Each structure stands twice: as C-alpha cells, then as structure tokens.
C-alpha cells in the first residue's frame, strides 16, 4: 500500500471514531455531574420521591418520570393506530398517484421544527381542549396529541417498510385460498411484519420521550403528579430545559441526574429496537 493511502485510512479512522468518542464523552460528562447527587439522596429521595422543591433541597423526580410515561403512552395510543393505518394504506392500497401526494406530506412532518409543533399546540390544541374539556388546556392530552403527530413519520416509514418487505408469496398464497385483500392484510401481512411494526413503535416512543420544546409549550409543566389526562404534567426533558438556565450547585446536579435517568431510558429503548429488528423475519 502506498504511504498516502495509509494517511487517508488513518484520517478516515479518526473521523469515524469521532462519533463514538463524542457519545462516550457525553455519557461520561452526564454521569460524572449527575451521579453524586443520586448517590447522596439515594433511590427513595431521588427516583422514589415526587417532591421537587429545589429551594428546600428536595429533588424527587418521580413526578416527572410518571409525567413522561403518561404523555408518551398517550402519544403512542393516539399516534400508532393512525400511523399504522397510514402505513397499510401506503403499502397495500394507495395507487401510485395518491402515494405521490401522501408520502411527501408525511415526510414533511418530519422536517417541521419542534418549536413550530409547540406553537401549533399552543395556539390550536390547548385552546380547543380548554373550551371543550375540564382544565385550562395545558395538559397531558395536549402533549400526547402534539407528540402523536410528531412520531407519525417514524411509525409510518418503518412500519411501511416492514409491510413492504413481507414476501409476495404469502400474499399470493392467501389470495389463492380465497381470502379477500383485507383478510390477507389482517391475517398474514401484518403478523408477518409485526417485528418491524414493534420496532417502529419503540423508535416512536424514543422520539416522544426525547422531545422537549413542543412538550414544554403545551403541558403546563407542574411537578405535581397528574390525576387525569386533562391535568398538567412535567416531563424529564422539560425539567432540564426549564430550570437549567438558573440552576446552580445541587440543583444543577439534580438536573444532570435527571439527564442520567433519561439517558438510561433511551438506552433501554434503543437496545430493544435492535433486538426486535434482529428478530425480524423470524416469526412463529
């Protein structure tokens, strides 16, 4: 090998490892800032407590964990059925002309900045909820609705891909037995695509959990645990973004600790996605 090729190889190697190194650096940074206070307060004082009162030194994030779960589950419950229906329609039913209109529409959703979603939520969803439901509109439901829209591209694209990659043989076999198109979709194609669909749901979940700006703008952000979907709630991401600007000392550490929890949740989700996609095709 000529010497300049070795140079090129070396440079490419460094560039390639940059991404990994960055992740490692971020991980190290978050954990080193956040771990001390987690250790200090222990499980009960930090994860197990719903009292978040930085001024009096209470940093319980259970409320935010619950808030995040509530809002995310709501987003999944609203977004996945719509996204899946859309994926089935695109992959199985829509003709090319309709597909040409629908697909760019969905891709456009992915490109809209999250603050715009938040603004839409603030000026349309929140007032609507305030008018028709109990509460002042800033609520778990508002957050779930906005996030449901935001995770649509993820759910639609990945589900559609997995539906399209179901072998045509299965479709022919089913139709040749006298199944209707709809029976074939429901009983053969969707079950065969289910690992990909599950992966799309998990990735959507990851997106929903990580989303910050749009959520802050519509959920009200109180640290009290919500009793109904019309009550306000605060998410883990929201907690960090709202308070980072003025936090110092232990308070600041507690926000990093919030980041640690967020980090762990996302890690678990990511690992389960790879597990699901590895299992793809291996259906019972």
């Amino acid at each position, binding site marked *: 090998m000529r010497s300049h090729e070795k140079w090129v190889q070396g440079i490419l190697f460094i560039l390639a490892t940059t991404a990994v190194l960055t992740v490692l650096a971020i991980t190290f940074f978050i954990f080193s800032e956040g771990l001390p206070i987690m250790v200090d307060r222990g499980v009960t004082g930090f994860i197990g407590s719903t009292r978040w009162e930085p001024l009096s030194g209470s940093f319980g994030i259970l409320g935010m964990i619950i808030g995040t779960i509530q809002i995310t589950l709501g987003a999944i419950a609203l977004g996945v059925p719509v996204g899946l229906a859309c994926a089935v329609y695109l992959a199985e039913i829509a003709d090319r002309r309709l597909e040409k209109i629908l697909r760019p529409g969905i891709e456009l959703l992915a490109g809209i900045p999250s603050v715009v979603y938040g603004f839409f939520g603030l000026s349309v969803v929140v007032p609507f909820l305030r008018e028709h439901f109990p509460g002042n509109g800033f609520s778990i439901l508002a957050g779930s609705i906005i996030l449901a829209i935001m995770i649509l591209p993820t759910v639609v694209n990945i589900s559609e891909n997995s539906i399209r990659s179901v*072998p045509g043989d299965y479709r022919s076999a*089913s139709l040749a037995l006298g199944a209707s198109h709809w029976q074939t979709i429901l009983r053969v194609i969707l079950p*065969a695509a289910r690992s990909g669909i599950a992966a799309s749901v998990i990735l959507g979940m990851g997106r929903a959990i990580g989303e910050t700006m749009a959520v802050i703008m519509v959920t009200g952000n109180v640290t009290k645990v919500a009793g109904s979907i019309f009550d306000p709630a605060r998410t883990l991401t929201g907690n960090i973004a709202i308070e980072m600007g003025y936090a110092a000392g232990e308070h600041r550490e507690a926000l990093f600790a919030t980041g640690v929890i967020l980090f762990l949740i996302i890690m678990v989700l990511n690992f389960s996605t790879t597990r699901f996609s590895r299992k793809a095709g291996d259906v019972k």
Partner: protein
Amino acid sequence: MKPAITIKNLNFYYRQVMALKNISIDIPANRVTALIGPSGCGKSTFLRVLNRMNDLIEGTRIEGKILFNDTNIYKDMDLMKLRKKVGMVFQKPNPFPMSVYNNIAYGPRLHRKISDKELDGIVEKSLKSASLWDEVRDRMESSALGLSGGQQQRLCIARCLAVQPEVLLMDEPTSALDPVSTAKIEELVKDLRDKFAIIIVTHNMQQAGRISDYTAFFLNGEIVEYGATREIFHRPVDKRTEDYITGRFG
C-alpha cells in the same frame, strides 16, 4: 363425463402483448391434465387465468369465456368463491410464517365460523390426504418454516385441501424439490385425482408422462395439441409436438 372447466376462445393480453391465443379446451373432472411447453409459452399464464391470479398484475385483460360449474368465472362468479373452489399450489413452497396447524386452519377460518373441534378434524384430514400427517403430528405448533422443502410443499397442498376445492392448479410444484420429495408429490397427485381435477404445469416430460391422463402442449401462447397423454407421447399428430417431446427443442 362433464368437464370440470370449459375454456372457450380465450385470448389473454399483458398490455399490448397477446400471451394466449384462441384457446378452447375442456378440462376433465377427476383427471390429471398436464400443461407442457417451453419457457414463456404461456402455460403458467393459462393456469393463473383459471383462478384469476393474473388479476393482480396490472394491465392484463382477457377475452373469451371460462366456464366453471356452468358459470363464467370472469363475469358471474364471486372472486373469493372461485379461488376457494379452484386451489393453487405454487412453484416455490410458500407456507405462511405460522405454525403447521395454523397454516392448514387458515383457509377454513377465512370462510366461516368454525368450532375448534371441527377445525382439528379438518386439519388432520387434510394433512392425512397430503400424506404429511405422520411426519408433523407431533409438531403441529412449531413453525411451518422449519419443515423441509418437500414437506413444505405437501403442507401447501394440504392447505388447499382444507378448503375443499374442486380443482387443484399446480404450477411446477416439484421444480424446487429433490427427487425423493418429487416422487412423494407425484404419488400424492395420483392419489388426489379421485377427488378433483388437477391441472399441473411441468417442465419435466417424464413427470407429465408418469402422472397425467391428458396433456396439452403449449407453444407461443397457443395450444398446439391436446389429448390423452399416451397419444401425445406416442403418436403426436403435430410435428412440433413430436420435436418438443423428443427433445429437439425447448
């Protein structure tokens, strides 16, 4: 005897291309009819006309009449009902990615509500008819994809039998299989002949000779010769048939 299917003046087009030209034959009931001919001669297309699987391909069109139980299948018959009555076994074994049991139960469940007990009976009977029962009786709940190629193909046959077809279409069902599995399928075809009409597309002359009662020789979208297999193989009328059968082309 009344024919199982009557084809009258059938023309078939892929867009502008005429793939089948003026085909008129009767397919006898309770007999095996082999369709032979070189690649691209239209025999598979013809087979897929009979259960309207070509409808799935954009830009196809047919002219003429195909009568099944005195009904024109392209005009007066419900598509799902037709495909239930005219089953199809494909070239490549294509069991669903489900358990052995659910593969067989799939068809019956489509068409009506059915009790578990009755379903068990149908599954067992279908697998026995496809001579697969003894090999899979202890693995009904394991994935059908774990079976060997030959077993998978017999499973596909059993899956068709479970909806009680009157005609069975087979599109080169043994071309992806080893000789032993092929022999089993051929044996099966002979057994099943009593129950319904079987139409089998094959590239394998010997196979056509071994298992069929009637043979149709296709060339360039036309049927050159159609008659009793014995006659076609021993005393072909048309020179082209003779050339093909004796291996001079194709």
